[in-house]
């Protein structure tokens, strides 16, 4: 379908060329049905601005983030070194990720193991494209007047101090942007980080995503915007718990921009 254009690093190499950017898709972006839509939205934006980018495809492997945070340093380093070996062979210099966890690991934890790249999150790339005029949000914006609140992913916000890029991008939508009472450095976690995504929560009296969704619900938003596939899952589940799946939508910033662009 869709007519999106994606090439792998191997294909570029075969042509004797090198792309300007590696798009690190991540496990969620590759395999999770909801997150795949975000992946495609990012690709549509990259196609629209005619970015010369590539993915690793079958050569990509988990960054090791959840293993490291769960205490399995061996597995993390095995993954990291394997990925670094491949990326260094391709002489990768710049990476964009669709996931703040991949972003954080590639950016902060790979250099010590020999992987030195410029790593940006997709909201930073989109902001860059808007700032440089390569990406323009046309009139007749579909989100005009809609109430949007942004949920800060921990690994983008607190972990790496990226608070402005996603907000700057959202500002171009002409929507009504509202902040939750806990936002930016005080933003509450969605509950998925530190490998929690892959296990049942410990015994408690509430799920973290329910608590966080309540923060959002206080604002009566039309859309909860995120920049992380795991936050997306958690917030979507939270909305289902609150029986609001009909009226509130959880969308990635890349999806909002792709839709505003009619891509």
């Amino acid at each position: 379908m869709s007519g999106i254009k994606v090439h792998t690093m191997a294909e570029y190499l075969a042509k004797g060329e090198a792309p300007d950017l590696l798009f690190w898709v991540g496990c969620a972006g590759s395999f999770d049905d909801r997150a795949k839509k975000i992946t495609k939205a990012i690709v549509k934006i990259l196609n629209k601005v005619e970015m010369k980018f590539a993915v690793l495809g079958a050569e990509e492997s988990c960054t090791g983030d959840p293993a490291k945070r769960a205490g399995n340093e061996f597995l993390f380093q095995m993954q990291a070194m394997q990925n670094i070996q491949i990326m260094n062979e391709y002489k990768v210099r710049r990476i964009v990720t669709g996931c703040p966890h991949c972003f954080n690991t590639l950016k902060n934890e790979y250099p010590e193991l020999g992987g030195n790249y410029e790593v940006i999150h997709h909201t930073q790339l989109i902001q860059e494209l808007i700032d440089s005029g390569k990406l323009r949000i046309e009139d007749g914006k579909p989100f005009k007047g809609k109430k949007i609140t942004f949920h800060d992913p921990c690994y983008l916000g607190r972990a790496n101090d990226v608070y402005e890029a996603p907000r700057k991008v959202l500002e171009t939508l002409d929507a009504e942007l509202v902040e939750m009472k806990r936002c930016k450095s005080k933003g509450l976690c969605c509950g998925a980080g530190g490998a929690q995504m892959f296990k049942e929560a410990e015994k408690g009296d509430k799920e973290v995503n329910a608590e966080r969704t309540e923060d959002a619900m206080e604002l009566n938003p039309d859309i909860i915007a995120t920049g992380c596939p795991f936050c997306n899952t958690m917030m979507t589940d939270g909305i289902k718990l609150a029986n609001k799946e009909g009226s509130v939508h959880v969308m990635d910033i890349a999806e909002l921009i792709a839709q505003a662009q009619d891509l």
Partner: protein
Amino acid sequence: MGIGSIIFIVLFFGAMGFFGFNVKKVIANINLGRDKKINDRKGERWKTMTLVALGQKKMFARPIPALLHLFIYVAFLLTQIELIEIIIDGISGSHRLFYPTLGGLYTLVISIIEVLSVLALIATFAFLARRNLLKIPRFHKDEMTGWPKLDGNIILYLEILLVFFIFTMNGADEALHIAEGKGSYGFAMSQWYGPMIFGGMETETLHLLERIGWWGHLTMVLVFMNYLPYSKHFHIFLAFPNVWYSNLEAKGRLSNMEAVTNEVKMMFDPEADPYAAPAEPVGEPQTFGVKDVTDLPWTSLLQAYTCTECGRCTDNCPANQTGKLLSPRKIMMDTRDRMVELGDYKRKNGKDKVDEKTLIHDYISPEELWACTTCNACVDACPVNIDPMAIIVDLRRYLVMEESKAPSELTGMFSNIENNGAVWQFPAADRLKWKDE
């Protein structure tokens, strides 16, 4: 030399000696931790220390307690100037040695101290109310019963006594000065309440009250100082080195385990001889991850001593907010308790002896550790840059790599990554399938 001077010298140097003895113990306990060299980015470290420790930047996320805390903090700092005079007066038997020579400046300094002491007293009562009457939730978590609760109140009672003696001293001295026909000292507060409370008393009574105030103040300062090493209140000194040595990297970056890197590199090196003995053993055989305080870097132990149990970390922790067992503050308190216990044991039984307890299991349970989402809210919230999350991850490393005890779903996730390079059970060959869906 008068009897007063002799008592002073014995009391003062005795107290300093006992304090020094306890500080040495604290340093020895911190040195139970693993060595970790930190001497990089000095400019940035001084700047961070100035802003965060001296300037209390992170406290102001909550303006009301920040302002109250600032009163006590500034009063404490400036009262130290007066202490110089007290020491000299105490040894030489002089009375307000600097008063005749410094003149107006002296009046100004003592006046500022008096005003700040009043503000500090107000703050102290407000803090007592916040702890005991207002039931601020972070002061009433499970770990805040018994000694930690009492400790928090004792410090405040000591502060009230301290200020009480200062005001007795200055008030009686003011009335005495007037009674002796020398006129008012002109200090901001005591020139008003001095005559009001102490006016009309016999000069001998006034002299006695002034001495009670002076000796009481001195005694409280020495008691307070010696109380610190036993208390959470040690943060008034340790906050400074603690912030200086704190993490300057992105909060999302977890430490790299070099011991693991060496092994993984061997596995990746096609030239490596799998049967060869390791070229040179790197230090002592190391456990992977943290089993006990001796496996933690010394900076984590310094952090444990620095923690003043304010509970901002726990208050901001998503796991704690949703009723899970984890409390980042408890992680720091447990680390300190275990460190002191092990330090005492080693001093008693010999340096190489260890008791049967460990930080993990005996103090911190796996259930607490597995509740953490590594969201960094606790790290962000700490006014003095303590990092409970690093300890949590270090303990998880021990559970996983030494005890092979991870929750079963996580073991499944590990196998997926090992077998097919993804957190779920999908083959690597399918990674690009989304393109054509």
